[in-house]
């Protein structure tokens, strides 16, 4: 009985801590002025700075002070091989996970490969991380890039395809 109670208390405490942490790190998708305040108007990647497509940007706040920002850029100034792999930027001011894979704080480029993965690159274009994308057939009005709340964090969408970003 004592053992069971101990296990119960520990479990409860773990759930309470997890619940508190979740409440603390709950993801809020930003819109309007809150969004434009955090999105950069241009982004440096592999030797060029390209303007952000402001209509295709999204950001989320985890808790009160942690931000993740994503946006598509105008890649018309890049060579064909760069355009094949790079479509936009991902900026995070704290460690996050993409579909469970860790990504430290930093600014990155990303692209959607034909193999059904989202690839994150450093600013020199070196691949850092590749995670599979999920197709959301039910999505009624897909857009080139958007975020929506998800139980585990936020979904970063490209059309109907998405990955889940969570705070770590």
């Amino acid at each position, binding site marked *: *009985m004592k*053992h*069971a109670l101990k*296990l*119960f208390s520990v*479990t409860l405490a773990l759930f309470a801590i997890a619940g508190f942490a979740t409440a603390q790190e709950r993801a809020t998708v930003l819109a309007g002025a809150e969004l434009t305040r955090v999105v950069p108007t241009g982004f440096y990647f592999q030797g060029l700075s390209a303007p952000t497509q*402001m*209509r295709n940007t999204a950001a989320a706040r985890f808790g009160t002070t942690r931000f993740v920002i994503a946006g*598509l850029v*105008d*890649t*018309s*100034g890049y*060579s*064909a091989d760069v*355009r*094949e792999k790079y*479509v936009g930027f991902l900026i995070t001011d704290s460690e996050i996970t993409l*579909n*469970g894979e860790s990504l430290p704080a930093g600014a990155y480029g990303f*692209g*959607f*490969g*034909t*193999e*059904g*993965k989202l690839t994150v690159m450093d600013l020199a274009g070196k691949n850092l991380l590749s995670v*599979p*994308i*999920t*197709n959301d057939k039910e*999505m009624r*009005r*897909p*857009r*080139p890039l958007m975020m929506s709340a998800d*139980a*585990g964090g936020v979904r970063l*969408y*490209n*059309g*109907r*395809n998405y990955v*889940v970003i969570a705070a770590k």
Partner: protein
Amino acid sequence: MWSSPRSKIRRRHNLFSKLVLVVCCSILVPFVLLAQTPPQKPDAQEPMGGVKTGPALTYTSRRTVGITDPNAPVIFEDVTDKTPLANFRHRSGEAAKDYIFDTPSGGAAIFDYDSDGRPDIYLVNGSTSAAMRGKEKAPRAALYRNLGNWKFEEVTDKAGVANERWGFSVAAGDYNNDGRPDMFVGNFGVSRLYRNNGDGTFTDVAEKLGVARKGWSTGASWGDYDGDGRLDLFVPGYVQIDLGNLPPSPSEAIKSGNAGCQFRGVPVMCGPRGLTGEGDTLYHQKADGTFEDVSVKAGVNDPEKFYGFCSAFVHVNDDKLLDLIVVNDSTPNQLYINKGDGAFEERGYPSGLALNENGREQAGMGLAVGDYDNDGLVDFHITNFSDDSNVLYHNDGDNNFTDVTFQAGLGEVSIPFLGWGTSFLDFDNDGWQDLFVVNGHVYPVVDTQQWGTSYAQQALLFRNLKGKFERVGAPPGNVLANAWPGRGLAIGDLDGDGREDLVINNLDAKPVLLRNVASTTGHWLGLRLIGDVAKKSPRDAIGAVVYLTTGNFRQRRDVLSGAVYCSQNDLTLHFGLGAATKVDKLEIKWPDGSTELIDVRAVDRVMTITQRSK
């Protein structure tokens, strides 16, 4: 069965452990499942080069030229060479197409400028950098008066409408309600408003009236958005160009070793992506006949500067207010819903019209407006770049649209084509609106590659089979088997035989005049509407909606200015009636919102209907 207290505790312990396990599993399983979700091929991919288009596809042969069907019926006959239109040569920039302004000109119009009941033809011309600098004679637009029996007389000089600027678009509308259609000609440079003087001549009054728009004006549309009975004018802007600071041409890029702008890895002209777009302009007509720029106040100034190509004032919903659609190149389309207080609400994204079904921006060019499925609501067909399909948006009501392109049979076939002018027409008079699409590429280099596409392209004709479309093949040797670098398109019954004809304006080439010779037994009715200015309907009835019923079959037509691609269809409405020899009900919703029932005593003719004053 009894058990000891110890065993009860053990059982509770086990029960609790199972509960913890279940809770943990229910939390973990979705993550495990998510991590195990197999990778899927994305259905949308960012574009290559200066336009928003789909993923590059590989073909073993060209799909845009030389496609014929020996069993196909003859629908159109080329009558160009029997008319003075054969002498018209469109010209826009140099053949290499080094710069973006070399490629998208120009529009065409079918409208009855002399009110003799026979629709006439206007062809917009482009220009050259040398002509802009005064170093060579500027190409001229042309007006052809319809004399009947496929005889036309060129009256450009007499009418004074040669333009001689870098022309792109034409939109007809009787802005001063004097019963004579006027013309707005959208230019790269300063645009013109040709007032019809009623004696066969026109006067450019753009400066005087405040619509001498500078910049790059494209497919304009007339419409009375505020219900004061006077036509207003919307003009999309495309790209801001500084002729003194042009982006590198493909040859310059190759020479300098710079990658320059590319399409599928091959150097091409730059743009529109990477170039600064231009805002749009709404001119409100004041009581004194002059115009004021109300773009910002009305919320249609396009602050994001999308690359505007085509527009139309049209009733998207059932209220009495004219809405506005703008088709943009490589940026989202805009749908402006009229709020009734002089302003519009942009609803492109929530309506589903901004993007295609996969949420991808496309290189929008032309716009067909019509109720293709006869459900009483107006639908849209938008043409796009090669490697991408044109899109048919079905109007679901309540300002909602669904991309039904592939279900309707218009997807796969259009992918290798680069579409421009598109228009619904009922070529066989069966009561179902068919579709005609004009095509042609912007990069001459495509002819040296195996990309499945070509610079000159065949036009596409689709027959409407009760809401689904099938391509009408081109008989060998027929005009539809020919390929052109097509741009503008205008539809109208030029010979009054009850079959809709058309004219195509081709880039750097002669136009094509197509006579409809389809063997059809379908009856028809043409309608010329005259609005009552005293009741605040514009005299040319732009904005009117007509519902025609034969038996259980109800069709809708809208009196429209603009759309197609920088072009103007005849304002006379055409209804195919199929086997019906009488009209059971003809209902006109006039621009002022009033409704009138008209008694139709005979078909197979054009009726002129004047709005009843009481």
